[in-house]
């Protein structure tokens, strides 16, 4: 099996290989107002963007670390040891053959060009700070769909960016959104015109290659009235003994009757801090769906959020988290019901193994104006051994009595009877565990494009190997 060969080469984490660093521009480590101004100048940005960045930088310096999540791990982050900008290619190419060989090889190994040919409507591939490859199917372009890497989006459509940038996630939302706003680079910019349905998913792939790298992509997706789009992102990084920082901000705007689905499978190596702010605004009768999988990283703190602003809007947040040795997945969801007859479903599933820790942190808010809304929250945790940890921090703020709210939570263990049953069918204990784990995550994986679902199941099976004794 090819997976075994790859694993032998790089240890348990299959994507832990790295390329030589051939940076064309690499900033010195550490952060200052000058670094922020330099990034903006290098990108020839309009002055208003430079001002947003500088202001955000000062907010970042003033704001305290979050006092929740995992303070011990957060306080280990050495912001002076991070490289905030690294350019590895002269430009963003439209043909894989024009991408530098070593970078192209990396994406080949990750299967991106192959996936693009088979089932994607567009692809952006980001390597370190910037996109190295970008393409969109012609038919989508003809329908007026705008799909750019964020830097190009700002150049080509500054009016749209200016209108919506920071409109969903203000710089001052939290320390890491301030940091991202100050030093952002790359990410995706998408605008779907009224009534246009993008049938094939578009994908972004984020790869960190260098040591001590900070990746700060910024994504903005606007689906105009009655339109729809499915955006998929994947992330990996090499395994180093020193830490890297990934701190993204994603803003979604679904206009009246529009639908945005945003799917993530985050498989960072276990030396990456993954501190991400994701939030969308759903106008009347619009739908926003976050399908969010967290498998890798050292510490993830991420709570995809939906603001249900218009009547009849709907939010769906399906998330899974897998926490293995030395990992803490602090994930969850936030839904704010601001308008009448809005509905939401939150399904969170987590697995902890080998002393890993997974936490569900959720916020459900119903304002006095939001009459007749409905919400259902389900949190299931599965513990694979006694050393692991799972905790739940649900918060509800309910401002009127007409809301119909359900909350279910369960913590379970794999039973000996289940294992015995599967083993009596010829499966080793590890294989049996893999089946149970894949089954537990099935409500999530069935929402993913098939290629992603297969990959995720395979990943989890690898995680089960060599871990039982």
């Amino acid at each position: 099996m090819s997976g075994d060969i790859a694993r032998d080469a790089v240890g348990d984490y299959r994507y832990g290989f790295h390329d030589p660093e051939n940076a064309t521009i690499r900033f010195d480590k550490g952060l200052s107002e000058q670094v922020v101004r330099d990034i903006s100048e290098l990108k020839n940005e309009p002055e208003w963007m430079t001002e947003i960045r500088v202001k955000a930088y000062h907010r970042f310096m003033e704001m305290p670390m979050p006092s929740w999540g995992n303070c011990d791990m957060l306080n280990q982050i050495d912001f002076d040891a991070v490289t905030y900008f690294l350019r590895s290619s002269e430009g963003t190419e439209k043909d894989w053959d024009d991408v530098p060989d070593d970078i192209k090889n990396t994406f080949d190994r990750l299967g991106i060009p192959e996936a693009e040919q088979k089932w994607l409507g567009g692809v952006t591939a980001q390597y370190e700070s910037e996109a190295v490859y970008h393409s969109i199917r012609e038919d989508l372009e003809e329908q007026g769909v705008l799909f750019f890497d964020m830097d190009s989006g700002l150049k080509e459509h500054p009016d749209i960016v200016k209108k919506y940038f920071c409109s969903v996630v203000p710089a001052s939302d939290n320390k890491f959104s301030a940091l991202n706003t100050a030093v952002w680079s790359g990410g995706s910019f998408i605008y779907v015109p009224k009534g246009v349905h993008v049938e094939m998913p578009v994908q972004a792939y984020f790869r960190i290659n260098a040591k001590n790298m900070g990746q700060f992509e910024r994504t903005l997706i606007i689906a105009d009235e009655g339109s729809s789009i499915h955006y998929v992102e994947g992330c990996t990084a090499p395994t180093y003994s020193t830490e890297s920082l990934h701190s993204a901000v994603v803003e979604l705007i679904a206009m009246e009757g529009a639908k945005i689905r945003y799917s993530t499978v985050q498989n960072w190596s276990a030396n990456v801090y993954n501190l991400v702010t994701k939030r969308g605004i759903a106008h009347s009768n619009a739908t926003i769906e976050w399908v969010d999988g967290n498998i890798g990283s050292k510490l993830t703190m991420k709570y995809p959020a939906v603001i249900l602003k218009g009547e009849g809007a709907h939010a769906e947040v399906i998330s899974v988290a897998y926490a293995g040795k030395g990992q803490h997945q602090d994930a969850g969801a936030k839904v704010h019901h601001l308008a009448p007859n809005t509905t939401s479903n939150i399904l969170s599933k987590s697995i902890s193994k080998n002393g890993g820790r997974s936490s569900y942190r959720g916020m459900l808010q119903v304002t006095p104006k939001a009459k007749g809304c409905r919400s259902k929250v389900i949190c299931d945790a599965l513990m694979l051994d006694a050393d692991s940890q799972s905790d739940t921090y649900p918060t509800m703020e309910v401002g009127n009595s007409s809301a119909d709210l359900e909350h279910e939570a369960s913590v379970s263990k794999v039973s000996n009877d289940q294992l015995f049953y599967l083993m009596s069918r010829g499966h080793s204990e590890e294989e049996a565990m893999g089946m149970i784990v894949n089954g537990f995550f099935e409500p999530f994986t069935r929402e993913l494009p098939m290629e992603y679902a297969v990959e995720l199941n395979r990943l989890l099976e690898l995680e089960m190997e060599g871990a039982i004794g």
Partner: protein
Amino acid sequence: MLSIENLHVSVDDTEILRGVSLRINLGEVHAVMGRNGSGKSTLANVIMGHPAYEITSGDIKFKGTPLKEMEVFERARAGMFLSFQYPSSIPGVQVGTFLRKSVSAVRGDEAPTAREFRKELKSHMDALEMDKSFLARYVNDGFSGGEKKRLEILQMLLLNPTLALLDETDSGLDIDALRVVAEGINSITPRAGCLLITHYQRLLDHVKPDYVHVMIDGKIVKTGGADLAVKLEAQGYDWIEA
């Protein structure tokens, strides 16, 4: 093929089996009958290797190999099969996927191709009067008692064991289900040994045993032919104990 010598088994320091000896050859059907708590199910589970049971003395050999040297999945791959009295549910795992993976695990190099597998599957499911919608459901999740037992027999037919252990496969079945399950068992017995754990004579109307063993208090106290089951049904167990 299977030989059990003076087997003693405990659960949590309570002795359940107290000296059981039994030999099963290829092509033989053995029925083990007895009251609740007599140790019948323990016998089936300990042969398959359930971790809750501890063999305190005695020995079980399968095709000459001591079972204590074999893991549960190795026993399955060597040709042993247990039809569970209470099969576990595996939420999120579809029956179709589960069957395909199990067949390739157990039958290894001799596993059928995808196309042959589909054909085999269809013919067995037709015989067991199972709708193909079964395949998309999660393993035993929300299944009725009868559906669970049919799925057990379907697995037995696909995995094609040389030793089938059937733990109260007849309990909770209506008369039609009992008939199709019995036909399933009969279809493998010419080429397999079979141990039927049962409370009732009625399965034995459809599956004719070569030997009937009566288990009381962790021991086989009497062995006879098919007529012994008929007598037990009519007269109960008291006459044996007396």
